[in-house]
C-alpha cells in the first residue's frame, strides 16, 4: 500500500504541474507572432539552439532598434504596423517529421502565428510547410538544402538560401576555373555522403553535375550517419584515389573523418566539402589545424567582414547570447531569412497572411543590407531566392578564408593540399 500511495502522490503532483504550467499569454495588444520550429534536442540540437539565439538577435534589432544599416533597425517595432513588436514562439521538433507537422498546426491555430519559420532538417520542413500551405500561412525556410522543397509548386513556401544544386554547381565551376588557373587537369571525383536526406540529395546533385562537367565518379560512398568508425569508408576512398574528394556530412562525422584520414594516411589533393559539419564553428575552432586545406562551400563567411560592416556588429550581438560561439553558416542564414520575413510583414502593413504572401513575392532586398555575399533577396515563382550566390572557403592557418569566386577571394587557393606526412 505504501508504494501505491507514493505512486499516486507522484501522479497527482504531475497532474498539478500540467495544470499550473499552462502557457502564459502576454497581454500586449500590438504584437505579431511568428512560430519558429527547430530541433532543440537530439543530435542536431546545437544547430537549433544557434538558430534560435540568432533569431533573438534579430528580434532585439527589430523590436528595440539598433544603430545598423538595416531598415528595421531605425525604429522600435515594425513601422509599417504602427510600431507593433514581433514575438517568437520557438518549439522543439526533436528532428521528427510528425512533431513538425503537429507543432506547425498548433502554432497557427493556438499560438496564432501569422507566419512559420524553420525547420532545418528537410524532412521536418516538408511536413511543417505542408500544413502552412494548406492553411494559407507563409512558411519561411532558412536552411533546408533539399532542392525538392521548392519543386512542389507551393504558393506559401519561401527559401532564402541556396539549395544543393546551387551549392554543388559552384564546386564544379571552381574545379574548371582552377584547372585553367593552375594549368592542371582533374579527371575523377569521389563522393562520400551520410545517408539522410541531406547527404543523399547532395551526392545526387554532385553525381549529375560531375557527368555534366565531364568528370568520372570514381566512387560514390553512402554511409550510416553517426557511425562509430570511418575506417572502411576511408579505405575505399584510398582505393579510388580520385583527384577531387567531395564529402557531405554533419559535424560529428566531419570530426571523425578528418582524424581517420590522418591516421590512415589518405591524402586527396583537393577536398571540397558540402558545408554542414565543415562550417560548424566547433569544427573550425577545434579541428582547424588538422583540417588545413579543406575547402567547403558556404553561403556565409566571417572574413567578408572587411567588405560588410554588418557582419562584425551582428556577430558581437550573437556572441553575447551564444556563450562565445561565432556567427556561422546556419545562424547567418537564419538571420537573413528572419529579417526577410520581418521586412515582408512590415511592407504588408497588415497581419493578413495573404498580404504577407504578396509582400514576400515582391521582396527586393539589396546586397548591402545582407550579411550574406549574395546579390540580394528576390523570390521566383517557386519561392526560391534567385539572388543566392555560394562561395567557397578554404581552411588556411586554422581559419576559413574565402577563395572563390575569385573576385570575392581574400586568399589564394592552396593546391595541392599538403600530404599528412609533410605537415608540421
Amino acid at each position, binding site marked *: 500500500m505504501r508504494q501505491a500511495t507514493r505512486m499516486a502522490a507522484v501522479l497527482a503532483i504531475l497532474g498539478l504541474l500540467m495544470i499550473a504550467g499552462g502557457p502564459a499569454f502576454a497581454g500586449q495588444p500590438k504584437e505579431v507572432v511568428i512560430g519558429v520550429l527547430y530541433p532543440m*534536442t*537530439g*543530435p542536431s*540540437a*546545437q544547430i537549433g*539552439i544557434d538558430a534560435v539565439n540568432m533569431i533573438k538577435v534579430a528580434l532585439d534589432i527589430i523590436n528595440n532598434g539598433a544603430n545598423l544599416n538595416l531598415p528595421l533597425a531605425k525604429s522600435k517595432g515594425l513601422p509599417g504596423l504602427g510600431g507593433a513588436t514581433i514575438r517568437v514562439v520557438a518549439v522543439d521538433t526533436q528532428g521528427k517529421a510528425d512533431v513538425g507537422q503537429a507543432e506547425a498546426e498548433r502554432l497557427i491555430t493556438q499560438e496564432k502565428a501569422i507566419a512559420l519559420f524553420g525547420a532545418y532538417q528537410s524532412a521536418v520542413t516538408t511536413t511543417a510547410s505542408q500544413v502552412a500551405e494548406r492553411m494559407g500561412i507563409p512558411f519561411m525556410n532558412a536552411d533546408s538544402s533539399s532542392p525538392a522543397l521548392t519543386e512542389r509548386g507551393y504558393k506559401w513556401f519561401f527559401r532564402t538560401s541556396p539549395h544543393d544544386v546551387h551549392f554543388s554547381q559552384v564546386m564544379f565551376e571552381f574545379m574548371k576555373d582552377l584547372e585553367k588557373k593552375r594549368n592542371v587537369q582533374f579527371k575523377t571525383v569521389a563522393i562520400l555522403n551520410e*545517408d539522410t536526406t541531406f547527404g543523399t540529395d547532395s551526392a545526387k546533385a554532385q553525381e549529375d553535375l560531375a557527368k555534366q562537367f565531364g568528370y568520372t565518379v570514381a566512387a560514390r*560512398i*553512402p*554511409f*550510416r550517419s*553517426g*557511425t*562509430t*568508425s570511418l*575506417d*572502411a*569508408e576511408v*579505405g*575505399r576512398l*584510398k*582505393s579510388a584515389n580520385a583527384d577531387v574528394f567531395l564529402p557531405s556530412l554533419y*559535424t*560529428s562525422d566531419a*570530426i*571523425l573523418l578528418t*582524424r*581517420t584520414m*590522418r*591516421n*590512415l*594516411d589518405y591524402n586527396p589533393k583537393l577536398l571540397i566539402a558540402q558545408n554542414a559539419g565543415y562550417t*560548424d564553428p*566547433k*569544427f573550425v575552432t*577545434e*579541428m582547424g589545424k588538422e583540417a588545413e586545406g579543406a575547402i567547403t562551400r558556404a553561403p556565409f563567411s566571417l572574413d567578408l567582414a572587411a567588405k560588410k560592416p554588418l557582419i562584425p556588429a551582428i556577430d558581437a550581438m550573437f556572441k553575447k547570447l551564444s*556563450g562565445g560561439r561565432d556567427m556561422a553558416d546556419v545562424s547567418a542564414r537564419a538571420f537573413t531569412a528572419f529579417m526577410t520575413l520581418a521586412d515582408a510583414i512590415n511592407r504588408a502593413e497588415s497581419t493578413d497572411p495573404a498580404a504577407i504572401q504578396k509582400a514576400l513575392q515582391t521582396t527586393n532586398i539589396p546586397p548591402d543590407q545582407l550579411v550574406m555575399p549574395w546579390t540580394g533577396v528576390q523570390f521566383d515563382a517557386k519561392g526560391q531566392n534567385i539572388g543566392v550566390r555560394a562561395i567557397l572557403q578554404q581552411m588556411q592557418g586554422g581559419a576559413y578564408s574565402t577563395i572563390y569566386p575569385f573576385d570575392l577571394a581574400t586568399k589564394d587557393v592552396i593546391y595541392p593540399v599538403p600530404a*599528412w606526412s609533410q605537415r608540421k
Partner: protein
Amino acid sequence: MLQIPSAEVLIQGIMNGVLMGCLYALIAAGLSLIFGLMEIVNFAHGEFLMLGMYTAFWMYTLFGLDPLLSVPICAAALFLLGWLTHKGIIRRILGGPMLAQIFATFGLGIFLRAAAQFLWTPDFRQIAHPLVQGPVKLFGISIGLAQLVASGASLAAFAVLYWFITRTEAGAALEATAQDRQAAALMGINTERMFTLGWGISSACVGIAGAFLASFFYVFPYVGSLFALIAYVTVALGGFGSILGSLVAGIMIGVIEVMAGLLIAPAFKYVAVFLIYLIVVLIRPQGLFGKF
C-alpha cells in the same frame, strides 16, 4: 558489387578492425559481467560510456589532465555511478519482470542523456591535443596511435578482469554468486555486496573504455547510443555472461564491420554485422560462449 581493394588497404582495414574491436569488447565486457551475475541487461550502458568520456573531457579541460592519466579517475567515477545505480535502482527491481528491468535502465539512460545536455549543452567536444594522437607506422602500414594504445589498454583491462575473477577471493565469490545465488548465500557470501561490486566493476570497465575513446572520438550527450547498440550485439554474440565471449565477439564485429565496408559497401557494414550475429545465434541460440 564485390570490390577488391589493394593489399595495403585490406591489411590496414583488418588492423583497424581489430583495434576498434578490442574497444567494443571492453565496452561489452561490463554488460556481460552484470548479465552473468544477475541476468539484467543495462540499457543505460551507452550513457555510462558517455559519462566516462565526459569525465575524461572535463579532466582535460579543467585540469589539463590527459585522458591517459585520467583513466583511474574515470574508472573510479564510473565505479561510483555503478554502485549508486545498483543501490538506488537495480536492487529494487531484482525480482521484477524482465520488461520492468529493461525500462528502469532505459529510463535512466534517457535521464542521463538529457542531464548531460542540460549541464553541458549538446555541442560536440573533443580533446584538442591528446598525448597520443596522429598516425603511427606498423610494418609500414599507417594506423592511429590513439587507437593502438586504446586497444592495448583494453586487452590489459581484460587481463586484469580475468585475473580478478579467476584468481582472487572476491572474484571467486563473484563467480559463485553468478552461478548460483542461493548456494552462494548459504556459503556465507554476501550476495548483495557482490551485486554492488559487479555493477561497480562493470561501470569501471566502461569508464576506462570511455577515457581511451575520448582521446580520439568526439564527445556529446548522444555518443553512447552509437556504441551501445554494438555492445548489445557483441554481448549476445559472445554469449551473455561470458567475458571471454565478449572479447572474441568484439574483435569479430570490429573486423566484420571494416571488411563488409571495404568489400561490399560501407552503407551495409552494420547490416553485415547484424546478419552474422543473427546467423550465429540461430545456429547457437546461446551465443558463441554462452552457458545456457
